Protein backbone atom coordinates (compact mmCIF):
# COMPACT_ATOMS: atom_id res chain seq x y z
CA UNK A 1 0.00 0.00 0.00
CA UNK A 2 1.21 3.50 -0.77
CA UNK A 3 1.54 5.73 2.29
CA UNK A 4 0.97 9.46 2.55
CA UNK A 5 0.53 11.97 5.34
CA UNK A 6 -2.82 13.59 6.03
CA UNK A 7 -3.14 17.38 6.41
CA UNK A 8 -3.75 16.71 10.11
CA UNK A 9 -0.23 15.36 10.51
CA UNK A 10 1.27 18.46 8.97
CA UNK A 11 -0.89 20.71 11.13
CA UNK A 12 0.01 18.86 14.35
CA UNK A 13 3.72 19.02 13.50
CA UNK A 14 3.47 22.74 12.80
CA UNK A 15 1.53 23.37 16.03
CA UNK A 16 4.04 21.40 18.09
CA UNK A 17 6.97 23.19 16.49
CA UNK A 18 5.33 26.61 16.96
CA UNK A 19 4.64 25.88 20.63
CA UNK A 20 8.22 24.81 21.27
CA UNK A 21 9.63 27.82 19.46
CA UNK A 22 7.30 30.16 21.33
CA UNK A 23 8.41 28.59 24.63
CA UNK A 24 12.02 29.29 23.72
CA UNK A 25 11.34 32.85 22.55
CA UNK A 26 9.11 33.85 25.46
CA UNK A 27 10.93 31.76 28.04
CA UNK A 28 7.69 30.19 29.27
CA UNK A 29 7.70 26.39 29.78
CA UNK A 30 3.88 26.40 29.79
CA UNK A 31 3.95 26.91 26.01
CA UNK A 32 6.10 23.80 25.62
CA UNK A 33 3.58 22.04 27.83
CA UNK A 34 0.78 23.26 25.52
CA UNK A 35 2.64 21.84 22.51
CA UNK A 36 3.48 18.59 24.24
CA UNK A 37 0.12 16.78 23.57
CA UNK A 38 0.45 17.46 19.83
CA UNK A 39 4.01 16.15 19.85
CA UNK A 40 2.83 13.14 21.84
CA UNK A 41 0.02 12.47 19.37
CA UNK A 42 2.55 12.58 16.54
CA UNK A 43 5.05 10.31 18.25
CA UNK A 44 2.49 7.76 19.40
CA UNK A 45 0.52 7.88 16.17
CA UNK A 46 3.56 7.42 13.92
CA UNK A 47 5.05 4.75 16.19
CA UNK A 48 1.88 2.66 16.19
CA UNK A 49 1.16 3.14 12.50
CA UNK A 50 1.66 -0.06 10.54
CA UNK A 51 1.24 -0.52 6.83
CA UNK A 52 -1.93 -2.58 6.43
CA UNK A 53 -1.82 -5.75 4.39
CA UNK A 54 -5.19 -6.74 2.98
CA UNK A 55 -5.98 -9.52 0.52
CA UNK A 56 -9.19 -9.74 -1.44
CA UNK A 57 -11.27 -12.15 -3.49
CA UNK A 58 -14.01 -10.94 -5.80
CA UNK A 59 -16.70 -13.30 -7.08
CA UNK A 60 -19.63 -12.83 -9.41
CA UNK A 61 -22.81 -14.90 -9.21
CA UNK A 62 -22.84 -15.32 -12.97
CA UNK A 63 -20.68 -14.35 -15.91
CA UNK A 64 -23.59 -13.78 -18.28
CA UNK A 65 -26.76 -11.85 -17.64
CA UNK A 66 -29.45 -10.03 -19.55
CA UNK A 67 -29.83 -6.29 -19.45
CA UNK A 68 -32.05 -5.12 -16.60
CA UNK A 69 -31.43 -8.19 -14.45
CA UNK A 70 -29.47 -8.34 -11.17
CA UNK A 71 -26.12 -9.99 -10.56
CA UNK A 72 -24.86 -10.93 -7.14
CA UNK A 73 -21.27 -10.05 -6.33
CA UNK A 74 -19.18 -10.70 -3.24
CA UNK A 75 -16.00 -9.13 -2.08
CA UNK A 76 -14.08 -10.99 0.60
CA UNK A 77 -11.31 -9.13 2.38
CA UNK A 78 -8.80 -10.62 4.76
CA UNK A 79 -6.43 -8.52 6.84
CA UNK A 80 -2.99 -9.75 7.80
CA UNK A 81 -2.40 -6.73 10.03
CA UNK A 82 -4.87 -4.76 12.15
CA UNK A 83 -6.78 -2.19 10.11
CA UNK A 84 -8.80 0.12 12.37
CA UNK A 85 -10.55 1.92 9.54
CA UNK A 86 -10.68 0.55 6.02
CA UNK A 87 -12.60 2.31 3.27
CA UNK A 88 -13.59 -0.01 0.43
CA UNK A 89 -14.74 1.27 -2.93
CA UNK A 90 -15.58 -1.12 -5.76
CA UNK A 91 -15.16 0.65 -9.08
CA UNK A 92 -18.21 -0.10 -11.19
CA UNK A 93 -18.05 0.55 -14.93
CA UNK A 94 -20.69 2.68 -16.60
CA UNK A 95 -23.67 0.45 -17.28
CA UNK A 96 -23.56 -1.36 -13.96
CA UNK A 97 -25.20 -0.01 -10.83
CA UNK A 98 -25.29 -1.12 -7.23
CA UNK A 99 -27.87 -0.52 -4.55
CA UNK A 100 -25.24 -1.00 -1.86
CA UNK A 101 -23.40 2.15 -0.74
CA UNK A 102 -20.52 2.82 -3.08
CA UNK A 103 -18.12 3.40 -0.20
CA UNK A 104 -18.09 0.98 2.71
CA UNK A 105 -16.07 1.24 5.87
CA UNK A 106 -15.03 -1.55 8.14
CA UNK A 107 -12.46 -2.43 10.75
CA UNK A 108 -10.49 -5.66 10.57
CA UNK A 109 -8.46 -7.50 13.18
CA UNK A 110 -5.43 -9.57 12.10
CA UNK A 111 -6.63 -12.68 10.29
CA UNK A 112 -10.21 -11.47 10.29
CA UNK A 113 -12.27 -11.85 7.13
CA UNK A 114 -15.11 -9.64 6.02
CA UNK A 115 -17.51 -10.37 3.20
CA UNK A 116 -19.27 -7.52 1.45
CA UNK A 117 -22.31 -8.23 -0.69
CA UNK A 118 -22.72 -6.08 -3.76
CA UNK A 119 -26.06 -6.57 -5.50
CA UNK A 120 -25.40 -5.28 -9.01
CA UNK A 121 -27.99 -4.14 -11.50
CA UNK A 122 -27.17 -4.53 -15.18
CA UNK A 123 -28.43 -1.20 -16.45
CA UNK A 124 -26.90 -1.40 -19.91
CA UNK A 125 -25.65 -4.15 -22.20
CA UNK A 126 -21.93 -4.54 -22.66
CA UNK A 127 -18.87 -6.62 -21.94
CA UNK A 128 -17.51 -5.55 -18.58
CA UNK A 129 -14.66 -6.42 -16.28
CA UNK A 130 -15.81 -5.84 -12.74
CA UNK A 131 -13.80 -5.98 -9.56
CA UNK A 132 -11.29 -3.18 -9.36
CA UNK A 133 -11.28 -2.38 -5.66
CA UNK A 134 -9.86 0.76 -4.13
CA UNK A 135 -8.76 0.41 -0.52
CA UNK A 136 -7.95 3.29 1.77
CA UNK A 137 -6.89 2.68 5.34
CA UNK A 138 -6.20 5.17 8.08
CA UNK A 139 -4.05 4.74 11.14
CA UNK A 140 -5.63 4.99 14.57
CA UNK A 141 -4.94 8.73 14.93
CA UNK A 142 -5.77 9.76 11.38
CA UNK A 143 -2.23 10.95 10.69
CA UNK A 144 -1.43 8.63 7.80
CA UNK A 145 -3.45 7.30 4.93
CA UNK A 146 -2.62 4.08 3.07
CA UNK A 147 -4.04 3.43 -0.37
CA UNK A 148 -4.03 0.41 -2.63
CA UNK A 149 -5.86 -0.76 -5.71
CA UNK A 150 -6.69 -4.45 -5.93
CA UNK A 151 -7.23 -5.71 -9.46
CA UNK A 152 -9.71 -8.55 -8.87
CA UNK A 153 -11.59 -8.06 -12.11
CA UNK A 154 -13.89 -10.76 -13.42
CA UNK A 155 -15.60 -10.74 -16.83
CA UNK A 156 -19.31 -10.02 -16.96
CA UNK A 157 -21.26 -10.05 -20.19
CA UNK A 158 -24.59 -8.27 -20.17
CA UNK A 159 -26.64 -9.11 -23.22
CA UNK A 160 -29.22 -6.74 -24.67
CA UNK A 161 -32.75 -7.57 -23.61
CA UNK A 162 -34.33 -6.80 -26.97
CA UNK A 163 -37.88 -7.55 -27.92
CA UNK A 164 -39.65 -10.88 -28.21
CA UNK A 165 -40.58 -11.18 -31.87
CA UNK A 166 -43.47 -13.28 -33.10
CA UNK A 167 -42.74 -13.07 -36.82
CA UNK A 168 -39.73 -11.90 -38.76
CA UNK A 169 -38.76 -11.39 -42.37
CA UNK A 170 -38.22 -14.42 -44.55
CA UNK A 171 -35.67 -14.60 -47.35
CA UNK A 172 -37.02 -15.13 -50.84
CA UNK A 173 -34.86 -18.23 -51.23
CA UNK A 174 -34.23 -21.06 -48.80
CA UNK A 175 -31.10 -23.12 -48.38
CA UNK A 176 -30.59 -26.87 -48.67
CA UNK A 177 -30.49 -27.76 -44.99
CA UNK A 178 -33.46 -28.81 -42.88
CA UNK A 179 -35.24 -26.05 -41.04
CA UNK A 180 -38.62 -24.57 -40.37
CA UNK A 181 -39.23 -22.64 -43.58
CA UNK A 182 -41.33 -23.98 -46.49
CA UNK A 183 -39.61 -23.14 -49.78
CA UNK A 184 -41.42 -22.45 -53.03
CA UNK A 185 -40.28 -25.79 -54.41
CA UNK A 186 -42.11 -29.02 -53.65
CA UNK A 187 -40.74 -32.20 -52.18
CA UNK A 188 -40.80 -34.39 -49.10
CA UNK A 189 -42.27 -32.55 -46.14
CA UNK A 190 -45.36 -32.01 -44.07
CA UNK A 191 -46.47 -28.57 -45.26
CA UNK A 192 -49.32 -28.99 -47.79
CA UNK A 193 -48.59 -27.43 -51.20
CA UNK A 194 -50.98 -28.72 -53.86
CA UNK A 195 -52.83 -31.71 -55.36
CA UNK A 196 -51.87 -33.56 -58.51
CA UNK A 197 -52.88 -36.79 -60.28
CA UNK A 198 -51.25 -39.98 -59.14
CA UNK A 199 -48.25 -41.14 -61.19
CA UNK A 200 -46.46 -44.47 -60.88
CA UNK A 201 -43.94 -44.31 -58.09
CA UNK A 202 -46.03 -42.16 -55.75
CA UNK A 203 -46.36 -43.53 -52.27
CA UNK A 204 -49.80 -44.72 -51.24
CA UNK A 205 -49.69 -42.70 -48.03
CA UNK A 206 -49.67 -39.53 -50.17
CA UNK A 207 -53.01 -40.36 -51.80
CA UNK A 208 -55.67 -37.81 -50.93
CA UNK A 209 -58.68 -40.09 -50.60
CA UNK A 210 -61.25 -37.33 -50.49
CA UNK A 211 -60.01 -35.78 -53.78
CA UNK A 212 -59.68 -39.27 -55.28
CA UNK A 213 -63.35 -40.09 -54.46
CA UNK A 214 -64.55 -36.77 -55.86
CA UNK A 215 -62.61 -37.03 -59.16
CA UNK A 216 -62.84 -40.75 -59.74
CA UNK A 217 -59.10 -41.22 -60.19
CA UNK A 218 -56.24 -41.25 -57.68
CA UNK A 219 -54.87 -37.88 -56.64
CA UNK A 220 -51.99 -37.27 -54.28
CA UNK A 221 -50.92 -34.45 -51.98
CA UNK A 222 -47.85 -32.42 -52.78
CA UNK A 223 -45.88 -30.91 -49.92
CA UNK A 224 -43.20 -28.31 -49.31
CA UNK A 225 -39.99 -29.57 -47.75
CA UNK A 226 -38.78 -27.83 -44.58
CA UNK A 227 -35.67 -25.87 -45.24
CA UNK A 228 -33.60 -23.33 -43.39
CA UNK A 229 -32.54 -19.89 -44.54
CA UNK A 230 -29.44 -17.74 -44.29
CA UNK A 231 -29.76 -14.33 -42.69
CA UNK A 232 -26.96 -11.81 -42.41
CA UNK A 233 -27.52 -8.99 -39.97
CA UNK A 234 -25.76 -5.92 -41.29
CA UNK A 235 -24.97 -3.53 -38.46
CA UNK A 236 -23.93 -0.03 -39.42
CA UNK A 237 -21.29 1.16 -36.94
CA UNK A 238 -19.98 4.14 -38.85
CA UNK A 239 -21.99 6.73 -36.96
CA UNK A 240 -24.68 7.04 -34.33
CA UNK A 241 -27.03 9.62 -32.87
CA UNK A 242 -26.86 9.76 -29.12
CA UNK A 243 -29.12 11.29 -26.53
CA UNK A 244 -27.87 10.83 -23.00
CA UNK A 245 -27.64 7.14 -22.19
CA UNK A 246 -29.18 5.74 -25.39
CA UNK A 247 -28.13 5.89 -28.99
CA UNK A 248 -29.12 4.50 -32.34
CA UNK A 249 -26.36 1.90 -31.94
CA UNK A 250 -27.95 0.69 -28.68
CA UNK A 251 -31.26 0.22 -30.45
CA UNK A 252 -29.55 -1.50 -33.38
CA UNK A 253 -27.73 -3.91 -31.06
CA UNK A 254 -30.92 -4.74 -29.17
CA UNK A 255 -32.75 -5.32 -32.45
CA UNK A 256 -29.90 -7.45 -33.82
CA UNK A 257 -29.94 -9.59 -30.66
CA UNK A 258 -33.68 -10.13 -30.92
CA UNK A 259 -33.49 -10.99 -34.60
CA UNK A 260 -30.55 -13.35 -34.19
CA UNK A 261 -32.28 -15.16 -31.32
CA UNK A 262 -35.49 -15.58 -33.31
CA UNK A 263 -33.82 -16.79 -36.50
CA UNK A 264 -31.63 -19.29 -34.66
CA UNK A 265 -34.62 -20.66 -32.77
CA UNK A 266 -36.17 -21.25 -36.21
CA UNK A 267 -33.06 -23.30 -37.15
CA UNK A 268 -31.88 -20.67 -39.62
CA UNK A 269 -28.25 -19.80 -40.13
CA UNK A 270 -27.32 -16.32 -38.96
CA UNK A 271 -24.26 -14.22 -39.68
CA UNK A 272 -23.24 -10.77 -38.62
CA UNK A 273 -21.44 -7.94 -40.31
CA UNK A 274 -20.57 -4.90 -38.24
CA UNK A 275 -19.68 -2.45 -40.98
CA UNK A 276 -17.97 0.67 -39.69
CA UNK A 277 -14.67 2.17 -38.65
CA UNK A 278 -13.67 -1.31 -37.61
CA UNK A 279 -15.01 -4.21 -39.65
CA UNK A 280 -16.26 -7.20 -37.70
CA UNK A 281 -17.96 -10.22 -39.16
CA UNK A 282 -19.24 -13.69 -38.40
CA UNK A 283 -19.95 -16.21 -41.13
CA UNK A 284 -23.39 -17.76 -41.09
CA UNK A 285 -24.01 -20.70 -38.80
CA UNK A 286 -26.72 -22.01 -36.57
CA UNK A 287 -27.21 -23.31 -33.06
CA UNK A 288 -26.90 -21.92 -29.57
CA UNK A 289 -23.15 -21.54 -29.90
CA UNK A 290 -23.64 -19.30 -32.91
CA UNK A 291 -26.22 -17.27 -30.99
CA UNK A 292 -23.68 -16.62 -28.24
CA UNK A 293 -21.05 -15.79 -30.87
CA UNK A 294 -23.38 -13.23 -32.41
CA UNK A 295 -24.30 -11.77 -29.04
CA UNK A 296 -20.66 -11.57 -27.98
CA UNK A 297 -19.82 -9.82 -31.23
CA UNK A 298 -22.66 -7.41 -30.66
CA UNK A 299 -21.24 -6.54 -27.23
CA UNK A 300 -18.04 -5.47 -28.95
CA UNK A 301 -19.89 -3.25 -31.40
CA UNK A 302 -18.95 0.36 -31.00
CA UNK A 303 -18.45 3.43 -33.07
CA UNK A 304 -14.90 4.01 -34.25
CA UNK A 305 -14.38 7.33 -35.92
CA UNK A 306 -12.81 6.75 -39.31
CA UNK A 307 -12.54 8.82 -42.45
CA UNK A 308 -11.35 5.91 -44.60
CA UNK A 309 -13.65 5.11 -47.48
CA UNK A 310 -14.94 1.55 -47.26
CA UNK A 311 -17.17 -0.35 -49.59
CA UNK A 312 -18.60 -3.81 -49.71
CA UNK A 313 -15.54 -5.27 -51.46
CA UNK A 314 -13.63 -5.41 -48.18
CA UNK A 315 -16.03 -8.04 -46.84
CA UNK A 316 -14.78 -11.63 -47.03
CA UNK A 317 -16.67 -13.60 -49.64
CA UNK A 318 -18.17 -16.17 -47.29
CA UNK A 319 -19.80 -13.58 -45.06
CA UNK A 320 -22.53 -12.95 -47.62
CA UNK A 321 -23.69 -16.37 -48.91
CA UNK A 322 -25.91 -16.58 -52.01
CA UNK A 323 -29.66 -16.31 -51.43
CA UNK A 324 -29.14 -14.90 -47.96
CA UNK A 325 -31.38 -12.20 -46.61
CA UNK A 326 -29.28 -9.18 -45.66
CA UNK A 327 -31.10 -7.34 -42.92
CA UNK A 328 -29.51 -3.94 -42.42
CA UNK A 329 -29.88 -2.01 -39.17
CA UNK A 330 -28.62 1.47 -39.84
CA UNK A 331 -29.33 5.07 -38.89
CA UNK A 332 -28.47 6.04 -42.51
CA UNK A 333 -26.18 8.77 -41.25
CA UNK A 334 -22.98 7.85 -43.07
CA UNK A 335 -22.55 7.98 -46.82
CA UNK A 336 -20.32 4.90 -46.80
CA UNK A 337 -22.98 2.61 -45.33
CA UNK A 338 -25.65 4.12 -47.61
CA UNK A 339 -23.51 3.36 -50.67
CA UNK A 340 -22.62 -0.10 -49.37
CA UNK A 341 -26.29 -1.04 -49.08
CA UNK A 342 -27.02 0.20 -52.58
CA UNK A 343 -24.05 -1.83 -53.77
CA UNK A 344 -25.41 -4.94 -52.07
CA UNK A 345 -28.73 -4.46 -53.81
CA UNK A 346 -27.02 -3.97 -57.15
CA UNK A 347 -25.25 -7.30 -56.63
CA UNK A 348 -28.60 -9.02 -56.29
CA UNK A 349 -28.71 -9.63 -52.57
CA UNK A 350 -32.07 -9.93 -50.91
CA UNK A 351 -31.86 -6.74 -48.85
CA UNK A 352 -34.15 -5.14 -46.28
CA UNK A 353 -33.27 -1.98 -44.39
CA UNK A 354 -34.53 -1.13 -40.93
CA UNK A 355 -33.62 2.49 -40.42
CA UNK A 356 -32.91 3.19 -36.75
CA UNK A 357 -34.29 6.68 -36.86
CA UNK A 358 -31.92 9.32 -35.49
CA UNK A 359 -34.73 11.91 -35.58
CA UNK A 360 -35.86 11.40 -31.93
CA UNK A 361 -32.26 11.96 -30.87
CA UNK A 362 -31.99 15.34 -32.58
CA UNK A 363 -33.49 18.54 -31.21
CA UNK A 364 -34.53 21.09 -33.81
CA UNK A 365 -32.74 24.39 -33.40
CA UNK A 366 -34.42 27.41 -31.85
CA UNK A 367 -33.65 29.94 -34.53
CA UNK A 368 -35.35 30.27 -37.89
CA UNK A 369 -32.22 29.18 -39.72
CA UNK A 370 -31.82 26.16 -37.46
CA UNK A 371 -35.42 25.19 -38.06
CA UNK A 372 -34.90 25.46 -41.80
CA UNK A 373 -31.77 23.30 -41.59
CA UNK A 374 -33.66 20.71 -39.55
CA UNK A 375 -36.49 20.55 -42.09
CA UNK A 376 -34.02 20.25 -44.95
CA UNK A 377 -32.30 17.39 -43.12
CA UNK A 378 -35.65 15.60 -42.73
CA UNK A 379 -36.41 16.14 -46.43
CA UNK A 380 -33.03 14.69 -47.40
CA UNK A 381 -33.74 11.63 -45.29
CA UNK A 382 -37.12 11.21 -46.99
CA UNK A 383 -35.41 11.48 -50.36
CA UNK A 384 -32.87 8.86 -49.33
CA UNK A 385 -35.61 6.44 -48.29
CA UNK A 386 -37.39 7.06 -51.61
CA UNK A 387 -34.26 6.23 -53.55
CA UNK A 388 -34.03 2.90 -51.73
CA UNK A 389 -37.66 2.14 -52.43
CA UNK A 390 -37.13 2.89 -56.13
CA UNK A 391 -34.36 0.30 -56.13
CA UNK A 392 -36.80 -2.22 -54.70
CA UNK A 393 -35.22 -2.19 -51.26
CA UNK A 394 -37.77 -2.16 -48.47
CA UNK A 395 -36.79 0.49 -45.97
CA UNK A 396 -38.71 1.23 -42.83
CA UNK A 397 -38.13 3.87 -40.20
CA UNK A 398 -38.01 2.45 -36.67
CA UNK A 399 -38.20 4.86 -33.76
CA UNK A 400 -37.16 4.00 -30.25
CA UNK A 401 -40.66 4.32 -28.78
CA UNK A 402 -42.20 1.89 -31.32
CA UNK A 403 -42.00 -1.92 -31.24
CA UNK A 404 -39.59 -3.55 -33.67
CA UNK A 405 -42.31 -5.99 -34.66
CA UNK A 406 -44.34 -3.16 -36.19
CA UNK A 407 -41.37 -2.07 -38.31
CA UNK A 408 -40.79 -5.63 -39.48
CA UNK A 409 -44.44 -6.01 -40.46
CA UNK A 410 -44.13 -2.92 -42.60
CA UNK A 411 -41.16 -4.45 -44.40
CA UNK A 412 -43.06 -7.71 -44.85
CA UNK A 413 -45.93 -5.84 -46.48
CA UNK A 414 -43.57 -4.08 -48.89
CA UNK A 415 -41.81 -7.31 -49.78
CA UNK A 416 -45.11 -9.07 -50.46
CA UNK A 417 -46.05 -6.40 -53.00
CA UNK A 418 -42.54 -6.33 -54.42
CA UNK A 419 -42.78 -10.06 -55.15
CA UNK A 420 -46.08 -9.58 -56.99
CA UNK A 421 -44.55 -6.77 -59.03
CA UNK A 422 -41.63 -8.99 -59.99
CA UNK A 423 -43.89 -11.76 -61.06
Amino acid at each position, binding site marked *: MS*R*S*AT*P*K*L*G*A*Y*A*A*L*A*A*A*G*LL*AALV*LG*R*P*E*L*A*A*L*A*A*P*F*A*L*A*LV*VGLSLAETPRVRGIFELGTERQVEGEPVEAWLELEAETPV*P*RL*EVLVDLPDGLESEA*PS*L*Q*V*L*GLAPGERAELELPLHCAHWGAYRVGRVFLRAHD*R*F*GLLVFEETLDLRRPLKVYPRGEALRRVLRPFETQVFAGNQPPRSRGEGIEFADLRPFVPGDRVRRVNWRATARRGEPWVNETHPERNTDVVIFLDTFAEARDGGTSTLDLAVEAAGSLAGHYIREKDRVGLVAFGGVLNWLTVSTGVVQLYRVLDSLLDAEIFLSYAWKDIDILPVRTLPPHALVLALTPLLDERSVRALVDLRARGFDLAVVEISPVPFVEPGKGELDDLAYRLWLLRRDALRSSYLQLGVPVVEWRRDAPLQAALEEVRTFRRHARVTRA
Partner: protein
Amino acid sequence: MAGTLLRGGGHEPLLLVVGGLALPVLLGGLVLRWSAALAVGVALLGAQQAVRLALGPDSPDSWTPLSAGALLLTAELVWWSVEPRVPAWSQPWQATRRVGTVLLACAGGSMVSAVVLVAAGVPISGGFGLELAGVAAATGALGVVAWVARSH
Protein backbone atom coordinates in the same frame (compact mmCIF):
# COMPACT_ATOMS: atom_id res chain seq x y z
CA MET B 1 -11.01 30.23 25.24
CA ALA B 2 -13.45 31.02 28.05
CA GLY B 3 -11.08 29.50 30.60
CA THR B 4 -8.27 31.70 29.34
CA LEU B 5 -10.49 34.77 29.57
CA LEU B 6 -11.53 33.93 33.14
CA ARG B 7 -7.85 33.85 34.09
CA GLY B 8 -7.10 36.97 32.09
CA GLY B 9 -5.61 38.98 34.92
CA GLY B 10 -6.84 42.31 33.58
CA HIS B 11 -6.00 41.66 29.93
CA GLU B 12 -9.41 40.31 28.98
CA PRO B 13 -10.04 42.67 26.01
CA LEU B 14 -6.78 41.69 24.31
CA LEU B 15 -7.37 38.00 25.00
CA LEU B 16 -10.94 38.37 23.71
CA VAL B 17 -9.62 39.85 20.47
CA VAL B 18 -7.10 37.01 19.93
CA GLY B 19 -9.60 34.31 20.89
CA GLY B 20 -12.31 36.04 18.88
CA LEU B 21 -10.08 35.78 15.81
CA ALA B 22 -9.79 32.05 16.30
CA LEU B 23 -13.54 31.46 16.18
CA PRO B 24 -14.31 32.74 12.64
CA VAL B 25 -11.16 31.08 11.33
CA LEU B 26 -12.23 27.75 12.82
CA LEU B 27 -15.79 28.21 11.56
CA GLY B 28 -14.51 29.06 8.09
CA GLY B 29 -12.27 25.99 8.13
CA LEU B 30 -15.20 23.80 9.18
CA VAL B 31 -17.52 25.21 6.53
CA LEU B 32 -14.93 25.04 3.76
CA ARG B 33 -13.38 21.79 5.06
CA TRP B 34 -10.03 23.54 4.80
CA SER B 35 -7.37 21.94 6.92
CA ALA B 36 -4.99 24.93 6.85
CA ALA B 37 -7.66 27.20 8.33
CA LEU B 38 -8.26 24.70 11.12
CA ALA B 39 -4.55 24.65 11.92
CA VAL B 40 -4.49 28.47 12.05
CA GLY B 41 -7.59 28.49 14.27
CA VAL B 42 -6.08 26.06 16.76
CA ALA B 43 -2.81 28.01 16.62
CA LEU B 44 -4.72 31.21 17.47
CA LEU B 45 -6.24 29.50 20.50
CA GLY B 46 -2.72 28.52 21.54
CA ALA B 47 -1.58 32.10 20.85
CA GLN B 48 -4.27 33.35 23.22
CA GLN B 49 -2.67 31.21 25.93
CA ALA B 50 0.75 32.49 24.97
CA VAL B 51 -0.41 36.12 25.24
CA ARG B 52 -1.94 35.48 28.64
CA LEU B 53 1.22 33.81 29.88
CA ALA B 54 3.45 36.52 28.42
CA LEU B 55 1.46 39.29 30.07
CA GLY B 56 0.78 37.41 33.30
CA PRO B 57 2.89 36.71 36.37
CA ASP B 58 6.12 34.71 36.11
CA SER B 59 4.89 31.90 38.36
CA PRO B 60 4.08 28.60 36.57
CA ASP B 61 0.44 28.19 35.51
CA SER B 62 -0.92 25.00 37.04
CA TRP B 63 -3.91 24.96 34.66
CA THR B 64 -1.73 24.50 31.60
CA PRO B 65 -2.06 20.65 31.40
CA LEU B 66 -5.85 21.01 31.37
CA SER B 67 -5.63 23.73 28.70
CA ALA B 68 -3.26 21.56 26.64
CA GLY B 69 -5.66 18.61 26.83
CA ALA B 70 -8.58 20.85 25.86
CA LEU B 71 -6.60 22.27 22.94
CA LEU B 72 -5.84 18.78 21.65
CA LEU B 73 -9.49 17.79 22.12
CA THR B 74 -10.53 20.84 20.10
CA ALA B 75 -8.08 19.95 17.34
CA GLU B 76 -9.22 16.31 17.23
CA LEU B 77 -12.87 17.27 17.07
CA VAL B 78 -12.47 19.86 14.33
CA TRP B 79 -10.47 17.48 12.13
CA TRP B 80 -13.03 14.76 12.78
CA SER B 81 -15.71 17.19 11.64
CA VAL B 82 -14.11 17.84 8.25
CA GLU B 83 -13.50 14.20 7.39
CA PRO B 84 -15.64 12.83 4.53
CA ARG B 85 -19.05 11.73 5.71
CA VAL B 86 -19.37 7.98 5.47
CA PRO B 87 -22.62 6.33 6.60
CA ALA B 88 -20.77 3.37 8.07
CA TRP B 89 -19.00 5.63 10.54
CA SER B 90 -22.29 6.37 12.24
CA GLN B 91 -22.30 2.78 13.43
CA PRO B 92 -22.21 2.79 17.24
CA TRP B 93 -19.08 0.65 17.59
CA GLN B 94 -17.09 2.86 15.25
CA ALA B 95 -18.09 6.11 16.93
CA THR B 96 -17.60 4.74 20.47
CA ARG B 97 -14.20 3.37 19.60
CA ARG B 98 -13.09 6.62 18.08
CA VAL B 99 -14.40 8.78 20.94
CA GLY B 100 -12.52 6.54 23.34
CA THR B 101 -9.31 6.92 21.35
CA VAL B 102 -9.66 10.70 21.27
CA LEU B 103 -10.35 10.99 25.00
CA LEU B 104 -7.45 8.69 25.78
CA ALA B 105 -5.13 10.78 23.61
CA CYS B 106 -6.27 13.99 25.34
CA ALA B 107 -5.80 12.51 28.82
CA GLY B 108 -2.36 11.26 27.82
CA GLY B 109 -1.54 14.67 26.40
CA SER B 110 -2.55 16.39 29.63
CA MET B 111 -0.33 14.02 31.58
CA VAL B 112 2.65 14.62 29.32
CA SER B 113 1.99 18.33 29.58
CA ALA B 114 2.05 18.05 33.38
CA VAL B 115 5.30 16.11 33.19
CA VAL B 116 6.80 18.85 31.03
CA LEU B 117 5.73 21.48 33.57
CA VAL B 118 7.14 19.48 36.46
CA ALA B 119 10.38 18.92 34.55
CA ALA B 120 10.59 22.63 33.80
CA GLY B 121 10.20 23.38 37.49
CA VAL B 122 13.10 21.14 38.55
CA PRO B 123 15.87 23.42 39.90
CA ILE B 124 18.76 22.31 37.74
CA SER B 125 21.36 24.63 36.36
CA GLY B 126 22.05 24.80 32.62
CA GLY B 127 24.99 23.08 31.04
CA PHE B 128 26.35 21.47 27.88
CA GLY B 129 24.24 18.33 28.29
CA LEU B 130 21.02 20.25 28.63
CA GLU B 131 21.83 22.42 25.64
CA LEU B 132 22.65 19.26 23.65
CA ALA B 133 19.28 17.81 24.60
CA GLY B 134 17.59 21.03 23.49
CA VAL B 135 19.37 20.97 20.14
CA ALA B 136 18.45 17.33 19.68
CA ALA B 137 14.79 18.09 20.43
CA ALA B 138 14.73 20.98 17.99
CA THR B 139 16.44 18.88 15.32
CA GLY B 140 13.93 16.10 15.93
CA ALA B 141 11.02 18.50 15.53
CA LEU B 142 12.50 19.82 12.28
CA GLY B 143 13.02 16.25 11.12
CA VAL B 144 9.36 15.45 11.63
CA VAL B 145 8.34 18.54 9.68
CA ALA B 146 10.75 17.63 6.88
CA TRP B 147 9.43 14.08 6.75
CA VAL B 148 5.89 15.36 6.49
CA ALA B 149 6.87 17.74 3.71
CA ARG B 150 8.58 14.93 1.81
CA SER B 151 5.72 12.50 2.10
CA HIS B 152 3.14 15.00 0.73
